[in-house]
């Protein structure tokens, strides 16, 4: 079982640009120092959601994730810029509730060599969003330029310690729809178009039986891979 993981950060406006660059470089370099970190990529969020820097990556297994957690590079280099009490912190706290999200998958279904990553965050009343996932699956193949489409429960948010055991309550965003687009133009055409999925998104997923989407938000960015 692989673990797909996202970290999303708002940036301290007072942070030195070089320090922010160092953090972004550390995310991209992570796999060289921690081999368990796979498919590291970053991006600058282009939506109005209150996060700026996004780090996406994955792990081969929960055990690999647990090794990442105790690697010195994690504590010494990444946390230096991230932990709230660190004097070198360059990020800020925010109320968006997507600091750490992710899901389990059977393989690297998320992979996108280049293009635009989009992550739709969903706060769904029900635990099972099978009907919504089925609705997405039924139409995703018809969307021009949509190369990756995965709907999954946000299991990583509450299980950030070992990747599998929830240690906090239900996360603010219960489910994710991860997308990979060939280009910004392709995503823009979808967003502004009238495909069944675009219409469903704009309507707040009305008409999806048994699924109540209370809130939705999204981030998207041009992929910068390691």
């Amino acid at each position: 079982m692989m673990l797909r993981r996202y970290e999303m950060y708002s940036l301290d406006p007072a942070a030195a640009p070089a320090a922010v660059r160092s953090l972004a470089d550390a995310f991209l370099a992570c796999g060289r120092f921690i081999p368990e970190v796979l498919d590291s990529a970053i991006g600058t969020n282009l939506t109005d959601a209150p996060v700026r820097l996004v780090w996406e990556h994955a792990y081969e297994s929960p055990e690999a994730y647990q090794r990442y957690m105790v690697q010195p590079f994690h504590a010494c280099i990444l946390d230096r810029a991230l932990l709230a009490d660190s004097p070198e912190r360059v990020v800020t706290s925010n109320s968006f509730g997507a600091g750490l999200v992710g899901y389990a998958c059977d393989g690297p279904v998320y992979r996108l060599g280049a293009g635009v990553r989009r992550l739709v965050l969903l706060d769904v009343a029900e635990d099972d969003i099978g009907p919504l996932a089925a609705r997405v699956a039924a139409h995703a193949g018809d969307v021009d330029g949509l190369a990756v489409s995965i709907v999954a429960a946000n299991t990583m948010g509450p299980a950030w310690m070992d990747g599998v055991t929830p240690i906090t309550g239900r996360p603010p965003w219960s489910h994710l729809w991860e997308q990979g687009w060939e280009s910004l133009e392709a995503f823009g055409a979808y967003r502004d178009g009238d495909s069944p999925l675009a219409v469903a998104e704009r309507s707040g997923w009305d008409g999806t039986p048994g699924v109540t989407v209370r809130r939705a938000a999204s981030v998207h960015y041009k992929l910068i891979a390691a």
Partner: protein
Amino acid sequence: MTAYMVDTIQVPPSRVDAYVALVHGVAVPVMTRAGATFESCRTTSPALGEDVDVQVTWSFADHVEWNLIRKNFVLDPAWHDLAARAVALRTGGTRRFYYPAPDPATEPASDAAVVAAR
């Protein structure tokens, strides 16, 4: 083996007492509760016409233990309050982790266990 986390914080001389009081009054109980060991709190002279360095050192066994300590303090609301109060007092600083560096003449530095722990 013991590892150390050393925060070297810059604060204006007028805020040194407040920062040191925050360390002893809040940080020590919060971090100790999380599992870290308080080692020391030292300052440079406040009479040099520059910001004062406050150097605070915590110790723990290794990065496996640090990961548990980290989990404990991240889940502690008092740690978040501590962090916010510290930000308001400091002007800058660094955080570094240190490890024992024995004399290679008496203890080979290539000790695989020590290197791995770093």
